[in-house]
């Protein structure tokens, strides 16, 4: 459950992501494809070379969606409803992969924020990404 304190920390961190959405998104995806090669199975149609337009475009898309979630922390289910449908009925990405992307996104934040990625921020953000993952998997069955 996201507390009021968590929500504040998440919003503060997001201020630092703004302006870097495409970069952070692309880096998170790239780290995920390299660290967890099995995740590439969902992208046979992508050019997965470093810095590819596919990766940059998709990274931007993912981070934009996360940004919308940050604006709707009180109602993630509603804010992510369309994406939840998409993942359940079209994409059918196994939910275990949400955790892998979450780990990689947090690595990106740690790399770029250093000490600012404090234990409290880390806890709040991990909870946030878990909550997003739960909503995306909500309609799977």
């Amino acid at each position, binding site marked *: 459950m996201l507390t009021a304190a968590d929500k504040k920390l998440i919003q503060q961190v997001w201020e630092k992501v703004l302006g870097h959405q495409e970069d952070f998104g692309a880096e998170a995806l790239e780290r995920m494809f390299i660290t967890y090669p099995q995740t590439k199975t969902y992208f046979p149609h992508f050019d997965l070379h470093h810095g590819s337009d596919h990766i940059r475009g998709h990274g931007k898309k993912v981070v934009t969606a996360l940004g919308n979630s940050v604006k709707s922390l009180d109602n993630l289910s509603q804010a992510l409803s369309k994406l939840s449908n998409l993942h359940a009925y079209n994409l059918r990405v196994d939910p275990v992969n949400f955790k892998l992307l979450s*780990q990689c996104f947090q690595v990106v934040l*740690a790399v770029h924020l250093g000490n600012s990625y404090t*234990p*409290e921020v*880390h806890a709040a953000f991990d909870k946030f990404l878990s909550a997003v993952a739960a909503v995306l998997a909500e309609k799977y069955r």
Partner: protein
Amino acid sequence: MVHWTAEEKQLIASVWSKVNVEECGAEALARLLIVYPWTQRFFASFGNLSSPTAIIGNPKVRAHGRKVLTSFGEAVKNLDNIKATYAKLSELHCEKLHVDPENFRLLGDILIIVLASHFARDFTPACQFAWQKLVSVVAHALARKYH
């Protein structure tokens, strides 16, 4: 047996040579207890764990974190024999400590984030790959003797 490429070994050794085991170990354990508070169940005797500040400043947490990461160093020194290296510790975690092996995976992921925050851009994707592989192998070795 786990296969390590020369590049993976080099990436692991290079990062490890720059790690302050005491600081990094303390930070990793503190973050585990903060980010996944249910892990505090194993540390009832550690005293004040009531807030992130308390946890970070807790001398028992610091000492234990250092102990855990020092032990992790044994894996780095024995990459080709991690299973044997942790056989006794695996039995201990099962029979005496009763720790769910899922906790090894959680700590491994936390360690990666701590390394990323310290090494920043130097913690490249290739580095992350090698280290995620290492923490996964260690977690597996620690769970291996469970019965």
